């Protein structure tokens, strides 16, 4: 990794790390709850919906916290005003392009999930695919964003 990373590149890395951490922790909590038998009395369809619906606000909160911590960390590192660069047209273009990638990844996961249901595979497979595509789209867009910033556009 080159030594001179821009503010945007650092921010993107922080966001990717936060996404990985939140999904890892969330998956671990779910796994432990599953092992404890906490989900035995919940209908599988409802459980899947709750798991997927919960991960979205969690992800948003994690991103906000990461952004706050990142800004504080930067202020400490530069010892004063963090001097956050303005978001310009290139940033918006990069964001649009990376969002497009996220959309493609999620769409692929969604179609696979629907395919698994059409093939009468267990419901859990569809939910795993949906959960995985949510994670994949988040990480995929982050990596794409980092790559765009690294090469200029």
């Amino acid at each position, binding site marked *: 990794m080159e030594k001179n990373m*821009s503010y*945007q590149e650092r921010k993107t890395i922080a966001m990717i790390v936060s996404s990985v951490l939140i999904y890892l922790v969330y998956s671990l909590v779910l796994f432990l709850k599953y092992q404890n038998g906490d989900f035995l009395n919940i209908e599988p369809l409802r459980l899947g919906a709750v798991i997927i619906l919960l991960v979205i606000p969690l992800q948003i909160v994690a991103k906000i916290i990461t952004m706050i911590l990142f800004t504080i960390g930067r202020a400490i590192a530069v010892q004063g005003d963090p001097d956050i*660069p*303005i978001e*310009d*047209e*290139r*940033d918006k*273009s990069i964001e649009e392009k990376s969002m497009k990638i996220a959309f493609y990844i999620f769409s692929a996961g969604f179609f696979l999930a629907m395919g698994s249901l059409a093939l009468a595979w267990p419901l859990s497979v569809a939910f795993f695919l949906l959960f995985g595509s949510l994670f994949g789209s988040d990480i995929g867009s982050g990596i794409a964003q980092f790559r765009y*910033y690294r*090469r*200029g*556009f």
Partner: protein
Amino acid sequence: MGKSRVSNNIRTLRFHNEEMTQQQLADKAGVTRQTIIAIESAKYSPSLELAFRIALAFNVKLEEVFSFSPEEIEGVKS
């Protein structure tokens, strides 16, 4: 992303404008230094508005900063 078909003289113009730094140009144009670097190295084609703002920063006409080479487009003969 390959090189843009829009080329520019930003580096030369910066040099002739009291060796204006990329950051100074970025501040005048209202963008980040990274965007100026990307434009200068022809990795990113700016919007028309930004192109005008860059030209304004140098007090020159748009065509003195940017030029377009249609002969580089595949299959198009000039």
